[in-house]
């Protein structure tokens, strides 16, 4: 039971608890709005932002947040209806961000180990300050959710209908994007810029197999997400595996199980 007194382990556990909660809720919004590519585009923007931060010598988490939030103002209009497929635009944005990151890595002498750690994350080395960021964004997400629940429901149900009945749809939609941007970038050191996308996408997808109302979708998605984080951390601790990758593999296993289980339930009926 050495892990109970292990400072690094406890710190990592607390950080991942916030990560799991935040991703469970954010992921549900991304799933309901049917904009999965937003996660990918943002993950890469956060990665490029963090590299940028390292190369000019400011806190990479902050620079990641800046670039990520800025990118939501490009992603938002692209996700509007009309024009060409938003997914194509997101694909372009994500390639651009990745190219930008590689360019910076090549030109500024950032070690590839350091760069990689931003992609895969390493929650065992998160700082207490990082945990504060995570706690703060998780708190804001829940507060926003509680206060604006009715409006959020209308927007994720149908953006056009929400707008037509006088709900401030733009405010809600952009707030959701910005909260997503903050969650992704503040997790660049926990699960990592690339893997965080999986944690946003997979738990709500698994939850949607069972949820028959909106509340159960939020709750199940959060449970799956927190469980993946906790189990991923234990797996990494006991089997000496990278945390971020373990978290995503466990989330994927939950998804696969949800499929099988649902099939079995359906088969019995």
């Amino acid at each position, binding site marked *: 039971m050495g892990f109970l007194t292990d400072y690094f382990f406890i710190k990592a556990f607390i950080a991942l608890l916030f990560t799991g909660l935040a991703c469970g809720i954010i992921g549900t919004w991304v799933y309901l709005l049917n904009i999965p590519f937003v996660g990918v585009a943002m993950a890469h923007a956060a990665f490029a932002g963090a590299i940028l931060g390292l190369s000019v010598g400011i806190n990479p988490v902050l620079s990641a947040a800046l670039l990520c939030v800025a990118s939501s103002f490009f992603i938002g209009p692209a996700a509007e209806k009309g024009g060409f497929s938003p997914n194509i635009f997101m694909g372009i944005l994500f390639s651009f961000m990745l190219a930008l990151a590689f360019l910076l890595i090549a030109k500024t002498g950032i070690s590839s180990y350091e760069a990689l750690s931003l992609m895969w994350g390493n929650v065992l080395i998160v700082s207490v300050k990082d945990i504060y960021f995570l706690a703060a964004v998780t708190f804001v997400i829940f507060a926003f959710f509680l206060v604006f629940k009715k*409006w959020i429901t209308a927007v994720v*149900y*149908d953006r056009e*209908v929400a707008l037509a*009945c006088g*709900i401030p749809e733009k405010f809600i939609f952009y707030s959701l994007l910005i909260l997503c941007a903050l969650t992704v970038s503040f997790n660049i050191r926990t699960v990592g810029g690339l893997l965080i996308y999986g944690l946003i996408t997979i738990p709500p997808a698994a939850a949607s197999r069972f949820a028959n109302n909106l509340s159960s979708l939020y709750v199940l998605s959060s449970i799956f997400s927190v469980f993946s984080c906790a189990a991923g951390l234990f797996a990494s601790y006991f089997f000496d595996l990278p945390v971020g990758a373990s978290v995503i593999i466990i989330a994927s296993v939950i998804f696969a199980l949800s499929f099988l289980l649902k099939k079995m339930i359906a088969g019995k009926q």
Partner: protein
Amino acid sequence: MFAAEIKNLSVVLSGKTILKNINLKIEDGSFTVITGANGTGKSTLIKTLCGLQKYSGAVKILGRDLKKTDRSVIGYVPQNNVSERTCPLSVFEAVSIGRHAKNGLLKKFSEKDGKIVRNALKISGIENIKDSLVGKISGGQSQKISIARVIVQRPRIIFLDEPQAGLDMESKKDFLNLTERLYKKFKFTCVMVTHDLDDIPSFCKKILKLENSEISET
């Protein structure tokens, strides 16, 4: 006062002029039908008047500029309702959205609101599926959700974009009866797009035709 007053309205979509210098006055409490061939811009006009589309010109709803008006006075029944929805809301909850919009953020959903929603479900003929998920119903049923949602919103002016499309014969008749009853009960202004000129309510006084980006009375 006019329910809607439109001056020199033009709408351009990706460089193409869809509506050009539309001038139109819709009297309070009137029932107006808009018709026209496919692709002439009927839906674009409806969306514009519901504040969902950028435009140039002036639009006043109930005497106030559309951009400043309280949107909950406008009811919108979109064309082609999506039935494949990912959001696990029940029909009851989806209809309640209209009530939430009316009530604002802070007011709790009361006993009375519940009654209003149940009543709207009943008159729209979807009471029997009130607990079904919105993703698991047919296109025609989803059309009725839109109508019920607008009823509970209690708007002053309603825009319906081909509300009868996709309804079966029986439902079409029901729909006409429903509009008639609602129209008489709530005395709202109604603007409806339809291709089906045989199926318009008797109290409709004005039929407009949209052609070549312009509107004319028939």
